[in-house]
């Protein structure tokens, strides 16, 4: 076997192995998708049936029972809205920490991350009472505020690590040319960090979309996002696997597809300052 052939064989083996692992890890999602086209009886049949006559009944039922568009819209507004606000607040902070670090910068960052450590179950009632007193229960505003604050520490930190590795010379050159700090951020730093910012945004959107504790406890009908829709399909009295799969497929599809399209950005941006 020549060296070239050996290499080719190795590539094929690597490919085969990678494909196997990927298919195994993806299988649960695939199975959920398939189950959503089964009848309830087929969904629990043993052995599991892979070939069957697909039905759209479950999707029809879900559409009839819950206003999918309404929930999806709430999910979109809360996750995108909070991400945009968080970015607007986080970019200046990360910029100033990265380019003008003080003695306390490190402490502030760690403190920010530590605000994420109070478990939601422990502070549910305080937050609930605050929301009630300000008339924020069952509003998208409440969710946007909470999601923003929830993800802010991670966003600041990710952007900080990226900004910190930007070559300082570029900034100095800009400053020599008489650029104001505003110019510096808008014309130099931001264009250089499109990848990092978009991947940070993506991460934040995914985390908000999938957040279930606050969105279930603070909403009723008006502001209920897709996670609340799922809660109306899990474990009723009676068989529910197929309908649940359909609802889950509908709830997860937008973010999964969005993620697929953006994974290139994600892969470029999640460097956490590893590029030097």
């Amino acid at each position, binding site marked *: 076997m020549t060296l070239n052939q050996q290499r080719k064989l190795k590539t094929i083996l690597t490919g085969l192995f990678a494909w196997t692992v990927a298919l195994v890890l993806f299988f649960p999602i695939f199975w959920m998708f398939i189950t959503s086209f089964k009848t*309830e*009886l087929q969904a*629990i*049949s*043993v052995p599991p049936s892979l070939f069957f006559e697909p039905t759209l009944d479950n999707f029809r039922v879900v559409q*009839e*029972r*819950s206003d999918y568009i309404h929930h999806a819209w709430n999910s979109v507004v809360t996750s995108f809205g909070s991400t945009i606000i968080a970015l607007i607040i986080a970019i200046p902070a990360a910029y100033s920490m990265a380019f003008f670090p003080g003695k306390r910068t490190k402490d502030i960052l760690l403190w920010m991350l530590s605000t994420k450590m109070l478990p939601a179950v422990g502070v549910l009632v305080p937050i*609930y*009472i605050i929301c*009630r*007193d*300000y*008339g924020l*229960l*069952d509003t998208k505003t409440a969710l946007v505020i909470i999601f923003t604050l929830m993800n802010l520490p991670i966003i600041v930190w990710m952007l900080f690590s990226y900004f910190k590795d930007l070559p300082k010379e570029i900034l100095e050159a800009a400053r020599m040319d008489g650029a104001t700090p505003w110019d510096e951020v808008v014309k130099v730093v931001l264009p250089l960090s499109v990848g990092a910012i978009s991947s940070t945004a993506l991460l934040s959107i995914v985390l908000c979309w999938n957040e279930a504790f606050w969105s*279930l*406890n603070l909403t*009723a*009908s008006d502001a*209920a996002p897709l996670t*609340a829709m799922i*809660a*109306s*399909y*899990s*474990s*009723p*009295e*009676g*068989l*529910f696997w197929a309908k649940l799969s359909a609802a889950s497929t509908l709830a997860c599809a937008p973010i999964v597809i969005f993620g697929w399209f953006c994974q290139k950005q994600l892969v470029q941006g999640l460097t956490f300052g590893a590029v030097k």
Partner: protein
Amino acid sequence: MKHLTKNTLTYAVSITAAMTAASAFSATQITVATVNNGHMIEMQKLTPEFEKANPDIKVKWVTLEENTLRQNVTQDIANKSGLYDVMTIGMYETPIWGERGWLQAIDTSGNFDVNDILPSIRGGLSYEGTMYAAPFYGESSMVMYRKDLVKAAGMEINDRDSWEHIRDVAAAVNNPEKGIYGICLRGKAGWGDNMAFMTAMANSFGARWFDESWKPELETAEWKNAVNFYVDLLTKYGPPGASSNGFNENLALFNEGKCGMWIDATIAASFVTDPKQSKVADQVGFAQSPYSVTEKGANWLWAWALGIPAATKNVEAAQKFVRWATSKEYIQLVGKNNGWAAVPTGTRASTYANTDFQKAAVFAEAELKAINSANPNDSTLKPSPYVGVQFAAIPEFQAIGTTTGQMISGALSGSMTVDQALKSANTSADRQMRQAGYY
């Protein structure tokens, strides 16, 4: 705390003002929170009929899975948030909330015919004689069994068999090689899951949750006998993974033809006899729950009911809706639209008197008998201070019942012995009761 309450008041006042101003122009909107069971989904579908009859009322729905719903509505009513105008609550919450003045009394005047409601159900939804939630459907528990399998094994099942006989039948029917398990029972931990079943069984062994001075009694011989019998029965003749099976898991097993017997909610009868979802629809027999030393409390009693929080601003519309959804006319409407086998049962005597219903529902007689035989006010052999058959209607019970359920499911899965399980459940219950200030 104080200034928060003050704030709330100001807000409540301003919101009420805004709402009254708005309602002068538009229809009243009421928000109904409900559990995601089949009968409620049907009610949601039929709501346009209600809106047609009451054009000034619009109904918005929030359907949630049981545990989430319970947490949401309790949070709402205890904090007087006023997000919901009608809530689906159970026989457990109703007397507790009624006592605290959190619920509006149900308007039973006029053609509502309150005397048609089954007495045990009405009793369980009342506090000091006032009904605080109107029953939407009610259930008890009974034995559902496969006539073909039991007959083939040369056995038979009757009303109120002894637990020993049930065990013998399970042993005779059990055939794991062919994928048939003698008996399916709830094992999944939860006060409304395995403990609903376990408590009813323990009642019939002469056990009770608390003695008259509210001390938990889980370490008594009665509890030990009952739990030992249950664990032994289910380990020997039950399906694999019994300790994570709830109502649905067992329903799926039974419908797939894998259970010889299943003792669970009477509501299951309409599912297992439905050929669209059950492979064994024409082979199911019914019998009253088995007992050991007493028939008292041997089968449970539960109702899902519609209650109106005291904090709602739309009392009138909410009352109208509740009266509609729990009326005889509603039951007839479902009967006409979906067939009489699909009507919500367990609430009204008139339903069982209806010949159409008797014809469509083979389980009608057994179900009515089970419901009528349950008495939430007298369900234990020795006197007990609490109301409820398979639960104790005190706020602490949810946590106590769930922890005990965890322990018993631990005993079932073999990670601890029955004695250990009951001991640590008792310790935990004792702590909770002490913390709550019962003694």
